């Protein structure tokens, strides 16, 4: 398949996948572009699966760096805050809280479970998920069931606690 076509069709999906993994859109776009640059170098036979595999690895590396960074730094990005159109302070606050809890809940999933869930949400079939994650096809249903259950449970738990837990990928 022509990579430029893959780019047109799947770039946004790849950015979303990465954004859900690392929680930073600018970095997600950087990493998605990096994945496509690497795809041009390697010319994979199955570019979509290859791209998401590379993206998952990049996100894991990013997560490791972010985890080190988080111990020391609190990121201030006034520019990003300023350009977010907010409907109102209360609604905006509530939405931010929801997003933060989903991120925190997602971060609490096991790596494979999280990636399987995110790949499924990006339209990957069980066969493709199995290929990307190196799992057997027969285990994907169980993996997704576990991921969905835990995601919802942790989200509810965080909501009831009113936790302001930091996201830890």
């Amino acid at each position: 398949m022509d990579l430029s076509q893959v780019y047109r069709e799947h770039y946004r999906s790849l950015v979303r996948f990465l954004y859900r993994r690392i929680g930073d859109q600018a970095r997600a776009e950087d990493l998605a572009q990096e994945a496509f640059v690497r795809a041009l170098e390697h010319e994979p036979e199955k570019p979509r699966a290859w791209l998401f595999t590379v993206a998952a690895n990049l996100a894991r590396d990013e997560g490791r760096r972010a985890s080190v960074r988080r111990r020391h730094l609190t990121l201030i990005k006034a520019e990003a805050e300023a350009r977010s159109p907010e409907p109102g302070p209360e609604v905006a606050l509530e939405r931010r809280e929801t997003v933060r809890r989903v991120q925190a809940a997602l971060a609490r999933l096991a790596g494979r479970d999280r990636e399987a869930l995110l790949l499924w949400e990006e339209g990957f079939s069980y066969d493709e998920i199995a290929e990307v994650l190196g799992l057997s096809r027969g285990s994907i249903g169980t993996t997704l069931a576990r991921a969905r259950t835990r995601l919802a449970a942790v989200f509810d738990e965080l909501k009831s606690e009113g936790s302001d837990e930091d996201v830890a990928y």
Partner: protein
Amino acid sequence: MSHIDEGTLHSYLDGEVSERQRTEIAGHLATCEECRTRLEAAEALSGRAAELLAELEPGTVQPPSWREIEERAAARRHAAPRPVRLRPRLAWAASIALAFAVGWASQAYFVRMPASEVGVVGALEADRSQAPQLRQRGAVEPGEAQPEAARQEQLRASEPDMTAIQPRAKVTPEEEAATEVAGRAPEGAPAQRLRDQPAELAEQDRAAEPADELVVVEAPAIVAGIEVAREEAQPQAAVPVDRAAPQPAAHAFEAERALAERRDAEAKSTGFVELPATDAALWLGKEPRTLPELTLERVEVGPGAALEGAQPGLPAIRLVYEDAAGNEIILTQQWLGGGFDAFAETAPAMTVEPSGHRAYRWLDDQGYLLILEGNVSGDSLRALAERLR
């Protein structure tokens, strides 16, 4: 059929079971209320998970043109190889190994050299004591052994006071004082001797210099294993008196070794190691940006992977400065060039630690990714950023 397991229920809901499985599951669900309830719960759970993930929707995504991606890949393919690939620790090991090899070669050269050329070089106690061992190692042809020994004997009989030659190695005032105590020529004697001695002796004196360097290279602490082998082959008494005394160059090697150990420790903890300031451009691939108004304390190199937003495959240079108030100001940089500017964040960003340590990061118009940090105000960092050269 027993109850349907959770994984199969989700596979069924996701449409990821075969036709045969679908028929079997549907048949079971028609007769099992418990599994129907579980199926409804699984369906709700699946929908809930999708809703939650939908909250994590990125903002507007504007992909760069495909041509831009292609150009970036092409730039990476054609990027010139970095001039320096050797890791600093390996470079130090290589330097020491090279120094030893040069010293060894010099030793072999002087041992093999005919006395007519060497003059009084062989009179150096260190060389005398090592020559037989070198023959044993095959450095000298068997046929030459006896004439060489005879020449050494002649030289020994006619040699002048060679202690006057030894201080030509780099000597500190403290070493000169020690020289006097040891009964050597008094201070100033070497210069006087060079003026007074015949030209031939001066030539011999110059030729003796590499042998002095050999003593340095063979400092026991540096090449302990080799030294042990030599100690076994030569009597302790044959070791020159001067070798027992502190050697300034040996101290230098000790200092270098200590520095190398410190670098290793630093590398393990931060990923950055110190390097000579003159090497910064080699690692960076371009002249580093500097803060000429501040005092440069040291220069370090480390992996880009250790830095947020940096290219993991490229090294990063860290210039550590001290400002007038004694604050440590660190300028970390990576030259991304034209091929990578779209990869890095271009908008300046300020980060702050709870301790007040701030970092200001930006990509300048020449392709440098720059991070300026220190325990100073954000305004100070921005002001310093404007003074970069």
